[in-house]
């Protein structure tokens, strides 16, 4: 047998640390590369956010100048979206989990996978370097003509960065789509797939269909900026609204790229820790696909105040509200999954349940802003900021944390400390709500977003928000200490610490190179908890290998 195979039969082999700094084509290494890299950017983006909040602690712009403030929030959002949430959820969890969950040895195109990852570090460094020339400062939406009038060099770098990161995202999406459709073990039909794979299927379709349109918009914007064409510049006969349509044609689906994988993670985590079958497997699976289709036809709800004609606003208002239906189906299914279960309230489950509750708040404020008459009042106020942070932080980031607690043992072979996990959870949950809940009120009272100064009557609540944001900053400390300490010296994890039924729990922690010695054959559905068979299967994943197999193939 090959050398690699002989390895598996010894101690669980550890991927040498150098591998993580190399052009590795192993999907697990790439997944961890994504996770660690983007976590660094989470910290950088978080630092920018704290600077923004510190400025907003007082009504005057006394901490940083107005121009700097614009640069800070622009780069904050850019980094959080393009360098933290999207790469973590798709590149990080997608890479690590999808091949394991479908019984494959790797992704369909391992080299493309590595290239997609390695586009990110140089691009992100380039983006950071733009701080030396004055970074983009027209918001992450980069609307012309504003974006054509400020910090030209920084804006050019921003455009290039978005094109490159978009390309990386397209490559990743291509890989996931082909992997999920073509690399499943023969005994796994689409309807036997873990729900995370369904979510990734829906996500990858969006990456493939929506991202190129963003690239197109960026090319046109780049020409306007650097060559002097006037596609989007009204002064030269162009039309900035076309930019908005192209941008949101990508960026609304992008919010689903940022949430669908988290939906998938939660669908894995809740049943394991509730010890109950998932409620409505097909409903959750197909609603992901429905969301991905509908997500492509609602973009102009970001443009209700951009002179969009009434009949069009009506269409987009209704379409947007319709999207709440498949989203609601998922929420009801998760609640029903947890309902009456014997809950195992570990850190992963706590974050998972917090995800559902916080996401519901963000979903409800979403339906509110989807209605045109309401949105005309709150557009570009802190109400929208509250909405997007409830879905992106309370949703995506809580989902990421839940996933990290759930699969850390599988990724590293070590258990995280539960006590510090709960401390981390409590601080994050409380800090998050102190920071973002008051923003609903601020928005309704008319406080505008993206402006360094505000009316002194908003001062009290802004102090509350800022305090909450500091608590959030501190909350990452227990997590990081826990993660680093556990990775080095935590108790060893067995192959199935949560007694899960999906395939990644049948291989050792961390899984060996190429994952599976033989193609696995499914003997049980992914969520058949509470059946006698489930007990047997879980026990088998924890049993030592039979001696006959150990002998064979070793040197």
């Amino acid at each position, binding site marked *: 047998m090959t050398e690699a195979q002989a390895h*598996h039969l010894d101690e669980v082999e550890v991927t040498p640390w150098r591998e993580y700094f190399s052009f590795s084509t192993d999907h697990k290494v790439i997944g961890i590369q994504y996770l660690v890299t983007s976590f660094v950017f989470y910290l950088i983006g978080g630092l920018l956010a704290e600077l923004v909040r510190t400025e907003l602690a007082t009504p005057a712009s006394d901490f940083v100048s107005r121009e700097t403030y614009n640069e800070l929030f622009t780069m904050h959002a850019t980094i959080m979206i393009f360098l933290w949430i999207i790469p973590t959820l798709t590149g990080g969890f997608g890479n690590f989990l999808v091949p394991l969950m479908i019984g494959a040895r790797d992704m369909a195109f391992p080299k493309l996978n590595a290239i997609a990852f390695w586009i990110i570090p140089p691009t992100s460094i380039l983006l950071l370097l733009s701080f030396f020339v004055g970074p983009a400062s027209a918001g992450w939406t980069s609307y012309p003509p504003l974006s054509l009038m400020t910090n030209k060099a920084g804006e050019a770098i921003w455009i290039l960065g978005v094109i490159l990161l978009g390309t990386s995202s397209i490559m990743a999406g291509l890989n996931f789509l082909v992997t999920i459709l073509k690399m499943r073990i023969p005994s796994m039909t689409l309807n036997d797939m873990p729900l995370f794979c369904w979510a990734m299927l829906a996500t990858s379709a969006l990456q493939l269909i929506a991202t190129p349109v963003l690239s197109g918009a960026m090319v046109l914007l780049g020409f306007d900026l650097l060559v002097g064409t006037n*596609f989007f510049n009204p002064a030269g006969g162009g039309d900035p609204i*076309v930019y908005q349509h*192209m941008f949101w044609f990508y960026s609304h689906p992008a919010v689903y790229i940022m949430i669908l994988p988290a939906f998938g993670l939660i669908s894995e985590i809740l049943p394991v820790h509730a010890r109950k079958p998932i409620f409505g497997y097909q409903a959750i699976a197909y609603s992901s696909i429905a969301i991905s289709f509908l997500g492509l036809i609602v973009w102009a709800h970001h443009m209700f105040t951009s002179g969009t004609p009434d009949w069009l606003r009506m269409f987009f208002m209704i379409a947007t509200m319709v999207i709440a239906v498949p989203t609601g189906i998922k929420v009801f299914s998760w609640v029903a999954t947890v309902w009456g279960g014997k809950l195992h309230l570990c850190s992963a489950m706590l974050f998972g349940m917090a995800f559902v509750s916080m996401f519901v708040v963000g979903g409800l404020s979403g339906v509110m802003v989807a209605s045109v008459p309401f949105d005309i009042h709150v557009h570009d106020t802190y109400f929208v900021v509250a909405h997007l942070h409830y879905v992106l932080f309370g949703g995506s980031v809580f989902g990421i944390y839940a996933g990290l607690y759930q699969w850390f043992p599988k990724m590293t072979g070590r258990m995280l400390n539960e006590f510090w996990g709960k401390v981390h959870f409590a601080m994050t949950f409380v800090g998050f709500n102190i920071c973002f809940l008051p923003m609903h009120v601020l928005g309704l009272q008319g406080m505008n977003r993206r402006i360094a100064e505000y009316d002194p009557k908003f001062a009290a609540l802004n102090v509350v928000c800022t305090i909450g944001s500091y608590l959030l900053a501190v909350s990452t400390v227990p997590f990081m200490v826990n993660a680093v300490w556990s990775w080095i010296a935590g108790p060893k994890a067995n192959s199935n610490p949560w007694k899960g039924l999906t395939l990644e729990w049948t291989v050792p922690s961390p899984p060996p190179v190429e994952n599976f010695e033989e193609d696995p054959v499914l003997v049980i559905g992914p969520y058949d908890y509470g059946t006698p068979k489930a007990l047997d299967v879980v026990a*088998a994943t924890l*049993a030592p290998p039979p001696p006959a197999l150990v002998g064979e193939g070793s040197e």
Partner: protein
Amino acid sequence: MQGSTADQNQADITYAATIETSEHHSEHPDLRLFGFIVFLVSESMLFLGLFVAYFAFRVVTPDWPPEGTDELELLLPGINTIILISSSFVIHRADTAIKKSGDVKAARLWFVITIAMGATFLAGQLYEYNHLGFGLTTNLFASTFYLLTGFHGLHVFVGLLLMSAVLWRSRVPGHYSETNHFGIEATEVYWHFVDVIWIILFLILYIL
């Protein structure tokens, strides 16, 4: 395969309960062509976005083309269109040659002809650029024209590079055969794609 870190105190149910081992694991399947086609679907969204933007710009501009800007000539682009469409049939012969009989020599010949036709197309386009009365930044009409045709021209150019790469690789005997011809097939699919994009472009820029 189970590792030795597994919790030893669990019931000793046999390992095979979870993973009833099948005979062998499958070879990594060749998914390159499928993947490439998915990529082209994505690529076509880029063009679709630009086409829709083109129509949007056209709708908001009162005169299209604006007064003082020449109408586009039809003769040269018409000839170019015929050349490009014909080249799709030519490249298809290469594909047939390799698939039916593994005839690398014939495939190479058809590729050379396709390259020549593609290069003629590009030369024709450059000639047209040089004789137009407007430049890239003259007005919105001119900008969209140059951007769309230029973007397509870039794709034609990439196609020429792909074909040259295939030619270069095919000098090694046995690199391409009846059963192993991904490079040839993918290049052909790409070329048809570029061709279809051109037909749409020609219709919306010159005819409509």
